[in-house]
């Protein structure tokens, strides 16, 4: 038996780690990975509440979150490749113009 709050606290810790990574990382790919970490933390919350209230809708929502994450990863990495081609850098501090 595991209290449901343990799972929620774990999810909060993972989300906080994702936020911290988003803020302190300077490599654009690592920043992107932090976003994935935050999405995973939210997915854990969905699954925990699905188990708590015995409702399967939570699982379906996790499925949709994963679909959106996959689409986001595809487009985001394509944008990163385009940035790298013109700027020759992955450092976000050197990508400071809207113009590609």
């Amino acid at each position, binding site marked *: 038996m595991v209290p449901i709050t343990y*799972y929620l606290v774990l999810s909060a810790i*993972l989300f906080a780690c994702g936020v911290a990574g988003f803020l302190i990382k300077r490599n654009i790919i690592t920043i992107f*990975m932090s976003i994935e970490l935050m999405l995973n933390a939210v997915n854990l919350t969905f699954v925990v509440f699905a*188990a708590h209230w015995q409702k399967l809708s939570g699982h379906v929502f996790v*499925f949709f979150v994963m679909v959106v994450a996959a689409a986001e990863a595809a*487009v985001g990495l394509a944008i990163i490749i385009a940035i790298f081609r013109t700027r020759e850098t992955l450092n976000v501090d050197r990508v400071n113009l809207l113009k590609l």
Partner: protein
Amino acid sequence: MHLILFIIFAVFCVGGALGLLISKHPINSALSLIVVMVSLAVLYLLLGAEFVAAIQVIVYAGAIMVLFVFTIMLLNAGEEERTKGSRVATALGFPALIIGAATVIYAILAKIGITGSLSLGQFRGTPEAVSDLLFRDFLLPFEVTSVLILIAIMGAVLLARKGSAE
């Protein structure tokens, strides 16, 4: 049993997340993130989410992370260079983050009043049950995601095509 497995894989999760934060090289961060995702898949199994655990491994730890590693290799990303951030942001940001996380954890533990505990096998999200819901109640959103995926594919091809930058 449930508690022991939970603690082991929760430690793996948090360790992987901290590894993502601490490591300097993006490939190390990517491997730490794979650790987090596989441990989360085990936690999903403990919660009875069989289908979600399977697609967590296949889609997240498989497809998306391979895409990340592939991009890191393709762009030959080296060690992260440190740049000077603003000192105020460093001084205020970390305490603010810790206070925020502590507030959320306090709210979960003490305030929202969700009690109850989960035991193994009390709820199962089998593929049959999930697909039953997905293809009946959520049929329209499911079809709309296909359009989203199509647009994402076209966008990725357009953005990454050679010569699109000029």
